[in-house]
């Protein structure tokens, strides 16, 4: 498996470690320093959101295929408001306002109704800044597991990362 910190089985913690190493002593790293090759096989589970005003008019610099499912890809200049609710990207970004409020990485999980069916997802939002102070972009990472009829409805834990590996 070609990922950052392969010894870590959870996607969100791998991305958190990458983000933390990338920023070093800075408060936030800039999006320009993100290296898809370093993120490796996790890159299709990632996305980069360019924040706009108002927030719902934010656009995407990159969205990995795993975040879009069968939708494949978003049209250029698709805004946050236009993201279909049935793709993983939508619940993964549902707490974007909390990220901007707390100004630190946030990882939440929960249930979502995706186009493939009900699923448990786990995502992380990582703040990025071109000037080191103001958050202007967000690195998104998420994965999911479809819920079968006999599966527990418990919220997903970190083990969901194994799904992506």
């Amino acid at each position, binding site marked *: 498996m070609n990922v950052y910190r392969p010894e870590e089985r*959870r996607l969100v913690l791998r991305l958190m470690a990458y983000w933390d190493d990338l920023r070093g002593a800075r408060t936030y790293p800039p999006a320009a320093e993100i290296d898809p090759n370093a993120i490796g096989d996790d890159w299709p589970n990632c996305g980069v959101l360019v924040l706009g005003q108002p927030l719902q008019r934010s656009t995407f610099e990159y969205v990995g295929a795993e975040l879009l499912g069968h939708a494949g890809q978003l049209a250029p200049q698709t805004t946050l408001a236009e993201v279909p609710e049935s793709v993983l990207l939508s619940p993964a970004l549902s707490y974007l306002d909390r990220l901007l409020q707390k100004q630190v990485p946030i990882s*939440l999980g929960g249930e979502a109704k995706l186009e493939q069916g009900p699923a448990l997802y786990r995502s992380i939002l990582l703040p990025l800044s071109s000037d080191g102070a103001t958050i202007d972009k967000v690195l998104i990472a998420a994965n999911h597991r479809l819920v079968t009829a006999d599966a527990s409805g418990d919220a997903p*834990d970190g083990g969901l990362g194994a799904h992506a590996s």
Partner: protein
Amino acid sequence: MTGDVAFEVHAFNAGKWKIQGFFDDKELALSEARRMEEGRRYPAVRVVEERYDAQAGGYRSRTVYRSSAVDAENDVALNERAQVRREVQEQRQTRGTASAREPKPPRSAALVYTAIAAKALLIFAFGFGAIYALNQLAGN
């Protein structure tokens, strides 16, 4: 996500605790705190649980994990000192010096007073003898 409980990872730096990450899963927060601890960028790391208390109508905070590089260093130092003390004690016992360092048994009060009286008597006798000798010399 339950919404009732959240876990914040804090790091101590420049004299204050600062939030570094926010999780709804305790195991994720603990894992991240341990990773930060291993990175040794911060002298201390902790995980704070924020749980909603419906009765109080607010969030209650409690630290569920705390690790300090200073604490770890202190533990190592304490263990090393304890080890040195044990080795010294063992060496003393081997050499039989432990008994030599035991305090002398206290003498009885009567013995002490007798010794003082004997010393006083000797001083008096020496003084009397000296005066007598001087008188004899002056007389000659």
